[in-house]
C-alpha cells in the first residue's frame, strides 16, 4: 500500500500479512529476571572463572569487611591500652603487637581502613566520572568543544600531582575523607580523559553508531547505549588504577604530615615508626614498618588483580560462552577450528 502523506508515519504503518502472530507479553518478573541475569549472575560467573579476579575479589572483600564490620566491633586504638612494644603473634589479645606508646597495632590498622576505602571510592569515582564526561563529550562532539576540552586536559595533565595537592590541602585543610579523595585525584582525570577521547574518536565512526544516528536516536542515548558500554572495560581498569593512585598519594600525604594526624591512617603509623619510634635503627622495631607496608601492598594488589580480571566481564563473547549459551555454528564454517587457527 502506497503511503499517502508525505513522509511522516501516521496510522498506515506496515502490517505483515505473513509471519506468525504469537502475542508475546513481557511481565514484570521477566524484566527482573533479565536484570538479575544480565548484571549480577553472568558477570559474577565470568569474574569467578579467572584466577586473578578470584584472588583480587577475596582481598578486596576482606578489606571491605575489615573496614565495615571489623571497625564496628574491634576497639578503637588509644595510648596505654595495652602492654608496650610487644612483637606480633606473641599475645592473642593484640595479635599484631603493640606500639611503644601502648597502642594495639591491629586496632590502628583496622580503624584506618574505613577512611582509606572512602577516599579510594570518592577519588576514583570523581576521576573516572569526570574523565568519562570530558572524554566522551570531546571525542563525540569534536570541533570547538573538543579543542577547548583537550587543551584544558593538557594543562591539568602537565601539573605534577603531589605538589598541587599539597598546595590545595594546605590551604583547604579538609578532614572529610571523601573531599580528600577528590582533591587527591584533582588532576588525575586528565590522562584518563585523553585515553577515553581517543577511544571515542574511533567508536564514533563505527557503522552501528552511524546507524543509530541515521535512525534519529538522540546524542545522549547514543552515548549511553552505544558508546559507553563499549568503553566499560577501559573505564573499569582505570577506575581501579585511580584507586591505586589514591592509596599511594593518601598514605604519602599522611606520612609527610601534610594531612592532619588526628585521623588514623597507615601513613601515620609509618611516620611514627620511622620518626618517633626509631624503628629504622634496630631489627626489633621492624614489625612497625612491615605491617603497614603489607596492608598497603595487599589492598593495592587486590584492586589491580580485580581490574585485570574484570575487563572480561564486559566482553559479550566470554559472558555467553561461560553462561553456557550455544555458540551458533558459523554459516560459512570458520577456517580454523576452535583449538588452533592462524
Amino acid at each position, binding site marked *: 500500500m502506497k503511503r499517502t502523506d508525505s513522509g511522516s508515519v501516521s496510522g498506515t504503518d506496515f502490517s505483515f500479512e505473513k509471519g506468525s502472530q504469537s502475542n508475546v507479553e513481557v511481565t514484570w518478573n521477566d524484566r527482573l529476571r533479565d536484570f538479575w541475569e544480565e548484571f549480577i549472575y553472568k558477570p559474577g560467573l565470568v569474574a569467578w572463572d579467572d584466577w586473578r579476579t578470584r584472588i583480587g575479589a577475596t582481598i578486596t572483600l576482606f578489606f571491605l569487611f575489615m573496614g565495615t564490620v571489623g571497625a564496628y566491633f574491634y576497639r578503637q586504638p588509644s595510648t596505654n591500652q595495652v602492654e608496650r612494644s610487644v612483637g606480633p603473634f606473641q599475645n592473642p589479645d593484640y595479635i599484631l603487637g603493640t606500639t611503644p606508646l601502648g597502642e594495639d597495632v591491629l586496632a590502628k590498622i583496622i580503624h584506618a581502613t574505613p577512611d582509606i576505602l572512602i577516599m579510594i571510592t570518592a577519588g576514583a569515582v570523581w576521576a573516572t566520572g569526570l574523565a568519562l564526561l570530558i572524554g566522551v563529550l570531546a571525542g563525540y562532539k569534536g570541533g570547538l568543544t573538543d579543542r577547548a576540552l*583537550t*587543551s584544558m586536559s*593538557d*594543562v591539568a*595533565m*602537565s*601539573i*605534577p*600531582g*603531589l*605538589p*598541587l595537592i*599539597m*598546595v590545595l590541602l*594546605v*590551604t583547604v585543610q579538609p578532614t572529610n575523607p571523601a573531599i580528600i579523595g577528590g582533591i587527591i585525584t584533582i588532576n588525575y582525570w586528565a*590522562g584518563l580523559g*585523553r585515553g577515553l*577521547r*581517543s577511544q571515542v*574518536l574511533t567508536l564514533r565512526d563505527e557503522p552501528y553508531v552511524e546507524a543509530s544516528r541515521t535512525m534519529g536516536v538522540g546524542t545522549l542515548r547514543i552515548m549511553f547505549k552505544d558508546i559507553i558500554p563499549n568503553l566499560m572495560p577501559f573505564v573499569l581498569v582505570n577506575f581501579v588504577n585511580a584507586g*591505586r593512585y589514591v*592509596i*599511594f598519594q593518601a*598514605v*604519602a600525604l599522611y*606520612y*609527610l604530615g*601534610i594531612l592532619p594526624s588526628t585521623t588514623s591512617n597507615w601513613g601515620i603509623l*609509618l611516620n611514627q615508626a*620511622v620518626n618517633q619510634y626509631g*624503628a*629504622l*635503627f634496630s*631489627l626489633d622495631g*621492624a614489625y612497625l*614498618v612491615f605491617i603497614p*607496608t603489607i596492608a*598497603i*601492598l595487599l589492598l*593495592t*594488589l587486590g584492586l*589491580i*588483580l580485580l581490574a*585485570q580480571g574484570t575487563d572480561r566481564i564486559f566482553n559479550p563473547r566470554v559472558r555467553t560462552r561461560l553462561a553456557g549459551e550455544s555458540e551458533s555454528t558459523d554459516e560459512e564454517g570458520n577456517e580454523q577450528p576452535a583449538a588452533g587457527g592462524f
Partner: protein
Amino acid sequence: MNSYYLKRTARAVLTVWMVATITFGLIRLLPGGPMQQLRADLLRQGGMTAAEVNARMEQYTSLVPDQPIHIQYFNYVAGLAQGDLGQSITEQEPVVDIIAETLPWTLFVMETAQVMIFVFGIVLGAFLAYKEGTKLDSVGSAISIVLSSIPYYVVAILAVYLLANIGGWFPARYGYDSTVASPGLNLPFITSALYHAILPIGSVVITGVGLQLLAMRGNSIQVLGEDFVRVARLRGLSDRRIATRYVARNAILPMYTGFLTLIAFSIGGSIILEQIFSYPGVGQEMLQALENRDYPLMMGIFLVITIAVVISVYIADLTYGLIDPRVSSGDSSEAY
C-alpha cells in the same frame, strides 16, 4: 616546519602560559591562600604599619599587594619572563637561586629513574612476550604485579632501613659526602653523588618497572600475532632482527604516550623521596617551604616543576614523531 611540530610547539607554549596563570590564581585569589596568610603572619609579628607590611610583602613576592589584579598579573608575568620569582622568606635568597641549586639534583634522580624504567620495561617485557605461556612468564608477570603494588616511598623507607642503617652498604642520606668532595666536575664528587643516588633511583625503578613491563609484554604479544611478523619470518629474517626492528619497534609506540604522563607524576613524586633520603632536591625545598609557610618559595618551585614537566613532555612529544612515521605526516591526536 611540518604542521605536526608547529602544533606541538604552540600547545606547549599555551600550556606553560595557562599553568602560570593558574599559579598566579592560586597565590592571589584562593580564599585563605598564600598571600592572605602571608599578610596575617606579618601582622601577627606586630610593630608594622599597613604600608610597611605591603612593602615587605612586595619585597618577598615582587608584587604590589593592593594594585588592581590585572596590573599585578602583568607584573607577575613580566617578572616571570625575567626569572624573578620573588624572595624566599626563610632563606632570604631569591627563589630562583634556590631552585637553580636544587633542581638539577631532582632532575638527575627522577629522569635517570624514568629512563631506566622505560629501558628495563621494554627489554624485559619483550623478553617475557617471547616466553609467553612458560612458567617464567607467569612468575615474571606475578612479580611485576606485586612490585607495582608497593608505593616507591615505602620501598625507599625499607631500603634506608635494611640496606643503609642495618646493612650499612649504602649511604642513607644527602646527595653526596661533603667530607670527601666539593661540588664541581671532579671525580670524587661524581662517584660520591652516584653512590648516594643508588638507593633513591633504585627504589623508584623497582616499583615503576612493573607496570611498564606488563604493558610492553601485552603490546609485544599483540604485535607477534600480526601478519607482518609472520611474513617477516617467511622472508627468512633473523629472529634477532624480527625481535628488535619489528616487534619491539611497534610495541613501543603505545608505550611512549604512557611514558609521557609518567614524567609528569614522577617529578611531583620527588618531594617524598627526597624527604626520606634528605636529598638536596627541589622536592625537599618544597616540603620545607610548605612546613614553614614560605609561600614565594613554595609557589616558585611549584611553577618551575610544572614548566619542567611541560618541557620534558614537549621534547618527548617531538621525538615521538621520529619513531612513528604515521604521525609526522598527519597530526594524530593519540600522540600526546
